[in-house]
């Protein structure tokens, strides 16, 4: 999709809609800035005055707990005013179009929209139709992109592995339906990770996925061998119409991350998951709660990364 929408003529980030097409320097700048926000969260007062007087609207047309909450906390820690719009109680159910909703919120002096939508391209549509002083962040659109999740995962990898050079990263599970996987692949390759693997059954891998610069594996045995980072994806029951899988139990047997399968990875490999986890479907509790799991730190880092994105956007 159009990346000029994201970066203006002066090279400044106007919206964050997708990782695709963003230069590595920009990704690193966001990660560097996030590091400073991590230290803010360790103080007595966990707020900074950066976005005082700004109004941020969380527009969630799909259910989300973690992403919506961490965006809300991030905005509040930047001293912005946050309004959460829950689609079940909004005018959308009365037939108002997406752009009408946005126009009305703009009339209420919105400065930033954080958008989650089931349709790919929803955040792009909004970004194309708002004034130049309004910034849009894509918090997940259909199967397309979830850029802040990818950035917080990059932050987590950098935190535990010290950088991206020389790493072997495996993304496991339902790649086909995963906007997280797509954004992660773009982020990992942009930041110079030499070997990105995807592991999953043929039915849950997009056709031509190797064109994104990844190595494709269909079994955990060989796919996890000597990796530094394992990223597990959620099996997306709700997006599956049609028989792509025999059963959740079968899936666990082949692709669920158990301590035995994890032993194929490097001994210091980290295990990540964007949440929400299906324990016993894609990940065993012994791994999810084990010493190699960094799943909860991911959530904490997510706040700092979202603060960085909002802080950079609102100042541009």
């Amino acid at each position, binding site marked *: 999709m159009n990346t000029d929408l994201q970066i203006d003529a002066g090279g*400044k980030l106007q919206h964050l809609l997708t990782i695709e097409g963003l230069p590595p320097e920009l990704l690193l*700048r966001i990660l*560097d*800035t996030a*590091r*400073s926000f*991590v*230290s*803010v969260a360790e*103080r*007595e*007062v966990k*707020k*900074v*005055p*950066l976005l005082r007087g700004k109004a941020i609207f969380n527009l969630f047309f799909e259910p989300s707990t973690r992403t919506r909450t961490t965006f809300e906390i991030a905005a509040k820690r930047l001293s912005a005013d946050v309004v959460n719009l829950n689609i079940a109680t909004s005018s959308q159910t009365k037939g108002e179009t997406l752009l009408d909703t946005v126009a009305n919120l703009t009339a209420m002096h919105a400065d930033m929209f954080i958008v989650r939508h089931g349709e790919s391209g929803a955040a792009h549509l909004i970004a194309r139709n708002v004034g130049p002083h309004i910034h849009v962040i894509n918090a997940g659109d259909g199967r397309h992109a979830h850029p802040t999740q990818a950035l917080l995962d990059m932050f987590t990898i950098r935190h535990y592995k010290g950088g991206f050079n020389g790493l072997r990263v495996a993304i496991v599970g339902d790649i086909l339906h995963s906007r997280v996987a797509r954004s992660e692949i773009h982020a990992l390759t942009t930041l110079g990770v030499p070997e990105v693997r995807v592991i999953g059954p043929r039915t849950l891998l997009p056709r031509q996925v190797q064109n994104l610069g990844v190595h494709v594996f269909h079994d955990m045995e060989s796919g996890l061998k000597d990796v530094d980072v394992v990223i597990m994806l959620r099996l997306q029951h709700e997006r599956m119409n049609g028989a792509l899988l025999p059963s959740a139990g079968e899936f666990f047997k082949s692709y669920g991350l158990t301590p035995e399968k994890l032993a194929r990875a490097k001994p210091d490999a980290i295990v990540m998951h964007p949440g929400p986890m299906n324990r016993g479907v894609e990940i065993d509790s012994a791994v999810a709660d084990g010493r190699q799991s960094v799943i909860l730190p991911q959530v904490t880092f997510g706040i700092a990364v979202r603060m960085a994105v909002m*802080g*950079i956007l609102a*100042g*541009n």
Partner: protein
Amino acid sequence: MLPDAEALIAKLAEQIRRDAGSRVALVGIYTGGVWIAERLHQMLGLSTPIGTIDVSFYRDDYKKTGLRAGVRPSDIPFQVEDADIVLVDDVLYTGRTIRAALNEIFDYGRPLSIRLAALVDRGGRQLPICPQFLGAAVEIASDQTIELRRDASGRLDLTLVTGST
């Protein structure tokens, strides 16, 4: 001709030793203020580790200039509550950086006191802020700036830069 930075730091150390004693805790403002604070910490033989702050999240020109690249994490590794703090900066000018630093320090706790140490004061204050410890007052043209630089051996030097802001 600008004064010698190393001599000014020795002078600051003497003033702080005389007035503030050894109970004091230093907080340096990135980048120059941190270098000076490190030096003062050594000269004064202080036991409390130095704090370092980057005031980017507190600046009053964010709306005009945005968030600049290269923000460093602030870190105050001592109890700010009831501490006697000496805030250290290299060049004192409008006072806006100091205002931002004061606000940031208070988000760590309520200190007993904060005093300001500056290597040089170039005048031009826009806020009611003045240093308690000062290396030297200097007069320079408004289109000039003073930069503190550190060479490979760690020696600090003041440099006059013309034509940048």
